[in-house]
């Protein structure tokens, strides 16, 4: 059973699992019907915030639950309070239903590296054991921390269930539509003056493969998943060939509000701190215990994403300039 299939990431995970002949049936769950084609996936319209989810699990005799229903953007969920409702209450209800279902053998949770927060006191690389250092946690990072807390509680109460928590870096790729991809797609990219964040990305294909990998194998524990290497924010913007617009940090939240109003991208405060200080995670355990090798590095995942975006203004201008000079010279 896969939750959150009406959203892009959930739908892709469900399709990938359905494509595997080793899995008998895949049930997709969400409140609204999916827009994407789901293939062999059986869609059940149910709300994970509602106890009715327990009946679905019992009725369909579900043995594996893949929870991809954590929402990252308040806009798509209909506001911050609704987002929190889906993330936290939804997870609570889902876990409560799983606890009552004796058939459930495995739980895979798609979490995020936002649980580590972002701040100046952060270590260069977070390992799975490290606690977040930044105090102000809002939005997705707060939700993700709470979701993981409930998942840990569930793992304690049902030691027979194999629980894998996948802390994934920001997904990026040609099809991903997230605050980060929208941010990079803006014609002029605003950044925070005097800071240069370190970013890590996970290619969308790798993300889907990782969920499949965790579903097919028994890999209990918490794992950081990210592409190799690090890009700095200024470097990423230069690779896009887009002009960056550096703003002092105190104007960041008002800029984010303007950007949100213009429906260009959806920023929450924790994303602003992320784009200020950056965050990188250690992926040693992904290789050793989780035995997963991402096909893309951070840089190549970003290149793949860049190919979809097309050229930025700086690149175009420089091409024009080059062509003009070439013509002038004959």
């Amino acid at each position, binding site marked *: 059973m896969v939750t959150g299939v009406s959203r892009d990431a959930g739908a892709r995970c469900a399709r990938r699992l359905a494509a595997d002949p080793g899995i008998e049936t895949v049930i997709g769950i969400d409140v609204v019907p999916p827009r994407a084609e789901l293939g062999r996936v059986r869609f059940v319209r149910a709300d994970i915030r509602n106890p009715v989810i327990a009946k679905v699990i019992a009725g369909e005799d579900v043995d594996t639950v893949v929870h991809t229903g954590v929402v990252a953007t308040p806009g798509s969920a209909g506001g911050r309070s609704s987002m929190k409702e889906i993330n936290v209450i939804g997870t609570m209800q889902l876990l409560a239903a799983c606890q009552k279902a004796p058939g459930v053998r495995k739980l895979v949770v798609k979490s995020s590296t936002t649980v580590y927060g972002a701040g100046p006191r952060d270590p*260069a690389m977070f390992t799975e054991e490290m606690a977040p250092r930044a105090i102000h946690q809002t939005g997705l990072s707060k939700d993700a921390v709470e979701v993981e807390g409930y998942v840990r509680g569930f793992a304690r109460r049902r030691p027979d269930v194999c629980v894998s928590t996948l802390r994934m870096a920001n997904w990026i790729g040609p099809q991903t539509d997230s605050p980060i991809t929208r941010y990079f797609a803006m014609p002029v990219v605003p950044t925070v003056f005097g800071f240069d964040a370190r970013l890590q990305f996970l290619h969308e294909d790798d993300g889907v493969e990782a969920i499949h990998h965790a579903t097919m194998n028994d890999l209990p524990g918490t794992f950081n998943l990210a592409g190799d290497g690090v890009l700095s924010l200024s*470097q990423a913007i230069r690779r896009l060939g887009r002009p960056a617009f550096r703003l002092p940090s105190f104007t960041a939240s008002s800029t984010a509000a303007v950007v949100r109003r213009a429906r260009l991208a959806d920023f929450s405060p924790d994303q602003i701190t992320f784009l200020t200080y950056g965050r990188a995670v250690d992926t040693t355990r992904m290789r050793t215990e989780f035995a997963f090798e991402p096909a893309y590095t951070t840089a190549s995942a970003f290149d793949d994403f860049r190919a979809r975006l097309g050229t930025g203004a700086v690149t175009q201008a420089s091409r024009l300039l080059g062509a003009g000079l070439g013509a002038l010279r004959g």
Partner: protein
Amino acid sequence: MADADVIPIGSGGRPGRGSGRRTTPSAAARALAGPEAAKNRAERARATQARAAKNGAAPRADDAEAGAGKAKSRGKGRASEAPAGKTRGGKSAQAPRSGDGSAESPTGGAPSQLAPDLGGLSSVPDAGGPSGVEVGETASGRDFAAFEKIVRETLGADGEQKVAEFLAFLRRRLTGEYEVDEFGYDSDLTDQVLLSLLRPLAEKWFRVEVRGVENIPDTGSALIVANHSGTMPLDGLITQLIIADHTNRPLRTLAADLVFKTPFVGELARKGGATLASNDDAERLLRQGNLVGVWPEGFKGLGKPFSERYKLQRFGRGGFVSAAMRTGVPIVPCSIVGAEEIYPLVGNMASLARLVGVPYIPVTPFFPLLGPLGLIPLPSKWLIEFGEPIRTDDFPEGAADDPMLVFNVTDQVRETIQQTLYTLLMQRRSVFF
């Protein structure tokens, strides 16, 4: 510039096709060089002008990221800067840079575009001359030779190499095709820009004298522990430069969290190889085989009054020793003399510092009295000595969790540095010489 694909511009300033073979100049080339030599004096006057134009162009190229409109106006600006009676020359001098401009596309390879451009240009002298090709082409060929000459005169024999390297560097910066490691260390920027800016300060201003470089291992990791002083952490930067110049290895420094909180400072510090002074980061760097520099006195050493100069403060909580013990790397004590006198701290605006959220705001004899002028460090004479490495790999397992042992080793390191400081102070003739 390890990864730079450097292609020297043209024929190395010599007549010929620029194919790499050094043959005697052809008759055509000699004919070409003749009037050049005669007009030497006029040429020199032009050289200075062209140099000014070139220097002006470099920062403008940096601005390219700021906007498209600027990028276009850049071309115009340069054309108008070229001497009025020499438009052809101005254009041909521009030629190599136009290659750079088109290379701003993320996929473009500037050197590969540069080479055919210049190859075409430098082959002109051979084709022209006696065989009687139209005058304009010969003129542009001659102007390119003049450009090459200017480069050679201003930058020395390997001037073209330098220009080519600089253009390759500029291209990498503009397209983002450089590597940043997981700590945010940007070796390209550090080697090319940051250390080059520091070098005159260390060599000309502080006249740093280095001793005991052989104590720094050539391979493998080591923890370099030094005394901290001088109000501003210049000693850290200078030590980084000294180690980079003497051992060809980057020194990765550990800095306070205040550094990473501060705009610009934090950004540059990360790019320069610094990371947060925490056990996690220190051990990670040491496991990867880096030279790590740490100043365990921290702000206590940095901001101590001038009257307490060269008296070592408490060495933190000995975290650096436990990091070295866990990874089994040697500790190299480093004593820095001279940094205490660069900004003699005579007072502290404590309440203002609390308000701003920094550990102290210094009052020196010249700051804030002389304003920005007071920020110029005094030109004290520096002595830096690296001592015998202290091994940590022969301690028993779990020694890092034995606080008594850690404190003992910490004191040993501290005593070593203190004694070396006294010896160096005895040897120093005066503060400034």
